[in-house]
């Protein structure tokens, strides 16, 4: 059964339409698949891949740095301050960012921002090289 899916970021709307399934990974809760009729739910997302199954059965993959998923009776909304379709990831740039973040962590291993940058860059590298994160 299809339900409406909105995937929004501050700069634009990444996806808006009908779909049959959304898979996301929440902080502390692991991967959750949302199907039609899921109970009302709000979760905080980890840097991870979010997969949206369209009505046609096609699966769209997005890399999400952080964000939230909000489920109400008839719709699933994914909010992310930084996200992009996995097909648009620049692998080269991601590897450079990863190296920079690791460098920053060597200087100060408790740098929370660098830690976040590192996880995000790692995710992009993984997704661009084809393996699911």
């Amino acid at each position, binding site marked *: 059964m299809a339900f409406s899916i*909105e995937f*929004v*970021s*501050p*700069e*634009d*709307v990444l996806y808006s339409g009908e779909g049959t399934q959304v898979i996301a990974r*929440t*902080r*502390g*809760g692991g991967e*959750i698949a949302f199907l039609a009729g899921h*109970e*009302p*739910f*709000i*979760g*905080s997302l980890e840097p991870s891949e979010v997969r949206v199954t369209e009505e046609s059965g096609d699966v769209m993959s997005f890399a999400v740095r*952080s*964000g*939230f998923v*909000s489920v*109400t009776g008839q719709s699933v*909304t994914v*909010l992310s*301050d*930084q996200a992009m379709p996995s097909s648009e990831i620049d692998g080269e740039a991601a590897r450079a960012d990863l190296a920079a973040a690791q460098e920053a962590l060597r200087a100060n291993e408790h740098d929370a*921002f660098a830690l976040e940058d590192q996880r995000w860059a790692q995710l992009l590298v993984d997704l661009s090289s084809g393996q699911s994160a």
Partner: protein
Amino acid sequence: MPGGTERILRRRIGSVKNTKKITRAMELIAATRVARAQQRARAARPYAEQLTGVIEDLAAGGADVSHPLLREAENVSRVAFVVCAGDRGLAGAYNSAVIRSAEREIQALRADGGDYRIVSVGKKVADYFNFRGFDIDTRYDGFTDNPTYENAREIARRVRELFDAGEVDQVELIYTEFVSLGTQRPVVRRFLPLTSAKTIADEGGGDAEALAGFSFEPSPEGVLEDLLPRYVEARLFAALLDAAASEHANRQRAMKAATENAEELIIKLSREMNRARQESITTEIMEIVSGAESLNDEASAEVINSFAEALDA
């Protein structure tokens, strides 16, 4: 030398015409940029609304935690000011209006014995406060006419650092609110600490149906903890977009006025130039006539006649 004035005026008219072309071009560019900035502000709205919506749901679910970003100081003596204006001038009173209200706030704080920090956004802001001998904590520039979310995140990160570390008790955001194409006004808004989640929810703007019975992952408090920093960034981003749209609108107006002034000046100078030319012709004729009269013979009369014919032709 009578011909000299005319030449000088002709040159001035030429340069005013060039100025007019430039101001007219800047006016047109600013006009398209206002439209684009407004479009981006519209694109940012769904995210901000959904974010507020989630906060509403959380508040409805009863979550209200003691988050560092909600921490109210008992007495506020150290305040950070995030001052957002432009990188470039030629935008009428846009920059000076923001800077003036920022300076007023800072002076008022100092008069009460408080301590200020300045986070400047836009080259003009940093230049002004530097010149006036104020300390600038952090400066950001180079993006005010087209800010990205990444810019907002960077600034928000620094502001949160200041606030979380307890270096300041409060953060004020000073920027220009874009009310409509015709109206923009500088505003001073409290940025941090955030009002409680309950208040954010009550102020609304979100489109969530506030129904209780949500389940939360990891927990209502955990979600709120992740949510508030994003809310801070989204608010800052909205302010930057408002400021950008205002900057372009102000520049458009300023350049329109400059173009109109140039047109008026061209008309005025052309009149002056024509008068100068007429005067020099009259003087020349008078010289010839008086020269001929002083000779007072047939030959000079002939010269006058032939000159008159030449003028008629």
